[in-house]
């Protein structure tokens, strides 16, 4: 028990969890719709798209990289799949191509960053514009709507499956998979080692280049998957979709206790961080807050939450 308390105290995401619970209590008291099953399912559904990306944003930030191009990969993959489908390709096959394209975009980011020895911030900032431009060029700037076969819709975008929104189920499943990869496999260990001390990791025989590149590929695939699910849910795509998505994902990651200096962070924390962002937005809307005010408040809450969680667990020296 004592051991448990000690671990709890030293883990940053526990501070966030406490703030999160308080926040939920607050919204439960001031609105009478917050704590209802439909609303909670709604929150889960709302966060599920960016949540898929948050898990791998967490992984990439732990290894001291970052990916600012996720929103553009999201848009580009959506357009690729929609256009292939409109031109008669089987939707399953088109989706597979989309996932591979996501992997390809990530691979390019990874190779240029790691093998080129360039800062990931700059590389993926450039990639953000390049992939966005790609989406605009292939679409001619126009949105596309898709009439998906029922069988595909049911496993990707359906609004209910056992009363649960399917995107939310994907989110939960991918969270579990990411948690397994990061916390239970040697790959996850190497991600932490690379982020904690890249030189020491290399001297320990860890192929840090490969780990970092793989992280870029994983987040590319996650962005592609998110895009396909969103496309199914909305029955359409636009080449301007996903703008600002990288910021939401980074915010959720940081609220979840991941250090921007690398080496520290968990998928559990990322999960809480994702819900946190969703709950704040949802609660504010339920309270009838002006849409103009919401971003302002969320910005303050973001910094405040990170501050509280760091203070509460800051090491006593």
């Amino acid at each position: 028990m004592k051991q448990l308390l000690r671990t709890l105290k030293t883990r940053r995401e526990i501070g966030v969890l406490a703030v999160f619970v308080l926040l939920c209590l607050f919204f439960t008291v001031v609105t009478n719709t917050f704590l209802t099953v439909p609303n909670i399912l709604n929150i889960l559904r709302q966060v599920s798209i960016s949540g898929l990306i948050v898990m791998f944003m967490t992984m990439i930030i732990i290894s001291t990289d970052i990916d600012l191009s996720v929103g553009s990969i999201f848009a580009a993959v959506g357009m690729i799949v929609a256009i292939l489908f409109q031109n008669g390709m089987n939707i399953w096959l088109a989706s597979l191509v989309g996932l591979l394209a996501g992997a390809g975009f990530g691979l390019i980011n990874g190779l240029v960053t790691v093998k080129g020895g360039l800062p990931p911030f700059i590389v993926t900032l450039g990639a953000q514009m390049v992939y966005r431009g790609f989406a605009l060029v292939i679409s001619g700037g126009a949105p596309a709507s898709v009439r998906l076969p029922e069988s595909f819709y049911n496993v990707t975008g359906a609004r209910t499956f056992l009363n649960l929104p399917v995107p939310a189920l994907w989110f939960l499943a991918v969270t579990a998979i990411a948690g397994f990869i990061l916390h239970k496999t040697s790959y996850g260990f190497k991600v932490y080692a690379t982020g904690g001390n890249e030189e020491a990791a290399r001297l320990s025989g860890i192929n840090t280049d490969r780990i970092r590149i793989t992280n870029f590929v994983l987040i590319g695939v996650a962005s592609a998957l998110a895009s396909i699910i969103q496309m199914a849910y909305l029955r359409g795509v636009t080449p301007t979709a996903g703008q600002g998505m990288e910021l939401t994902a980074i915010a959720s990651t940081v609220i979840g206790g991941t250090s921007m200096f690398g080496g520290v962070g968990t998928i559990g924390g990322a999960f809480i961080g994702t819900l946190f962002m969703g709950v704040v937005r949802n609660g504010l809307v339920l309270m009838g807050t002006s849409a103009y005010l919401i971003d302002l408040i969320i910005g303050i809450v973001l910094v405040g939450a990170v501050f509280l969680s760091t203070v509460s667990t800051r090491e006593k020296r």
Partner: protein
Amino acid sequence: MADNILISYQSISKRFGGVQALDDVSFSIRKGDIHGLIGENGAGKSTLIKITGGIYRKDQGQVLWEGRPIEVNSPVEAERQGISIVHQEIPLCGNLTVAQNVFLGRLITNRLGQPKWDEMEERTVELFRQIGQDIDPRARVGELSVALKQLTTIVHALNSTSKFIIMDEPTSALTPGEVETLFEVLRRLKSEGTTIMIVSHILSEMMEITDRVTVLRNGRHVETMDTKDATIEGLVHMMVGDVPLPTPKESDAITGDVVLRVRGLNQLRLRLKDINFQLYKREILGLAGIQGAGRTELATTLFGVHQPDSGTIELEGREITIKNPRQAIEHGIGYLTEDRRNLGVFWDMSVWQNAGAAIIDDLTSYGNVLDNKRIEEMASKSIQDLQIKTSGMQQPIRYLSGGNQQKVLLARWLNVKPKILILDEPTRGVDVGAKAEIRKVIQELVDQGISVIVISSDLEELLAMSDRVLVMSNGAIRGEFLAKDATFDKIMALAVQK
């Protein structure tokens, strides 16, 4: 009596998690003394220094400064109080120049607040000249040798109006000549009335330089005495109990199989020139030389960090190429770095994660899934074999003392089950007791059939451990001795060759 006491520790206690780092420690330091602080790894020396410097807070007890209780809560407050610390691990900004580092935190500025670099650079040159060193004040610190970095931190401390300077292992990276220079500086400071506390594992140096000496053991105060009444044997006994002092090893000519043979190895950028040597099975081969002789460069080249420009490396009679550390490990070569802080430890990780980092792929089952049973086996074996003082395998490594961190890193390389282990300064910044333990472990490895290459600046230790010694200077091997035939004079004569 109380008038001549500068600082007095009264019942200081400090706990980290499950480890009692300091337990009711009381002693006093007289004004104008050079006071030695000695003790094993984990004896609490670093903790005491960090409490004095405001980096840690004490749990209990009082610090009296000239008879009055003081609370120092940050390094800035310590500096204001007149306390200056030269840390063991060197906190410099590598991207700044020497002068900028020396004047860090106390820039000389004109009335508009602009820094007056010319004046600071002149003062820097002057301060270095006082300790007998020429320096380019505009050189980037990151590009200096370890010894010059160390001297920069010392100059940084000299460049303040401190009444009390604490030096944590100031000589560990210095050559004998540089140590002598440092001691002259210390004596000069003492004659000007500065009080100095110095932590070192090299007891002969402590006997030479200190007026009084305090011994800590396991966080407790053992003794504070005048140095003139102390003997090295007596101090060692107070620190650890019964550990024999090293004597040069009596090995006969080596006759075993050759494990590693290096022929005509050149590496232009690292200035390695025509390296030829062989390493025998069950041998401990010492690499002697002064800072910058190229020993670490040779070691890291053998480990695949750098590629040789020419030459061959033969492992057990077969020529191999080593493109990176991973391939070196696959060939059964391990390398314990000299730079524990930057190249060794994963600071955010636990004891087991640090010990298992090089064999993480073997700690899995079902493909890549970490296997807790294997991890526990590995960790408990490592902790037991090396007698690592820790509250458990999950303890974050940052809470261990420097010597225990070093043992964890040694465990990392033992877990690889190497054929050849290269140990770069394995006992740097490690106390007498842990030194003996590490030496014992190395001897056991050799008995199991492993071959070891040791780099050490402590010549006495190198001779005590090695069967054979190679002397390097300026990137080349200058000579070879059996340890029993070697003397300090013979080795140093070769080591200072150009």
